[in-house]
């Protein structure tokens, strides 16, 4: 019974293409996140959505556009892919931002994106 799932697990594509990564959580959480992990394993937050509303938007190129159709889903769409976009992308979720004992994040398995 997967808590946070991402599809696809692996994505290989050519430079310049547009691709999407889907994320779904069945935990009933209000907040979802996207992280990028580079080749040196450094993990950096990209976006955070709370109840389908954008809360955090770190400095990422506007080629990256998150979309939250409902609070159980946060998809990441990337336009005009570049070589530097190659990384592992993690989706995560947590309960409401300010509630007690709800700060724990649950991560998806990651999507390895390779741009050729």
């Amino acid at each position, binding site marked *: 019974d997967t808590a946070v799932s991402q599809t696809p697990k692996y994505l290989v594509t050519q430079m310049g293409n547009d691709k999407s990564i889907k994320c779904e959580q069945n935990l009933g959480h209000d*907040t979802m*996140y996207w*992280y990028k992990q580079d080749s*040196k*394993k*450094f*993990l*950096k*937050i990209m976006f*955070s959505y709370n109840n389908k509303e954008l*809360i*955090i938007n770190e400095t990422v190129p506007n080629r990256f556009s998150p979309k939250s159709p409902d609070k159980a889903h946060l998809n990441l769409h990337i336009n005009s892919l570049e070589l530097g976009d190659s990384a*592992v992308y*993690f989706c*995560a979720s*947590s309960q409401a*931002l*300010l509630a007690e004992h709800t*700060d*724990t*994040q*649950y*991560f998806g*398995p*990651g999507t*390895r994106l390779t741009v050729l």
Partner: protein
Amino acid sequence: AQTVTQSQPEMSVQEAETVTLSCTYDTSESDYYLFWYKQPPSRQMILVIRQEAYKQQNATENRFSVNFQKAAKSFSLKISDSQLGDAAMYFCVFRDNYGQNFVFGPGTRLSVLP
């Protein structure tokens, strides 16, 4: 802005022994949360332990415990009776009280030797 430092890029420990991973952070806030996450080769990010800054008592979770020194802004993880399955990348994570800022350290790769 908050920063998290893990000064040990790699560590190794003999099976059944104890190892301590270090983490320091910088913040001007008084209320915040700290976590240790583990990332095995499967890439899944797994929560190991969490600590609320307002609690003086160190968190423990089975073989995992922390040494939280708020004044020193230090948050080390001790793994007792190390097992082969503990081999992974370990990330120290800071979260502010408003829940809008999660900051990951650069990670420590732990190897467990049989």
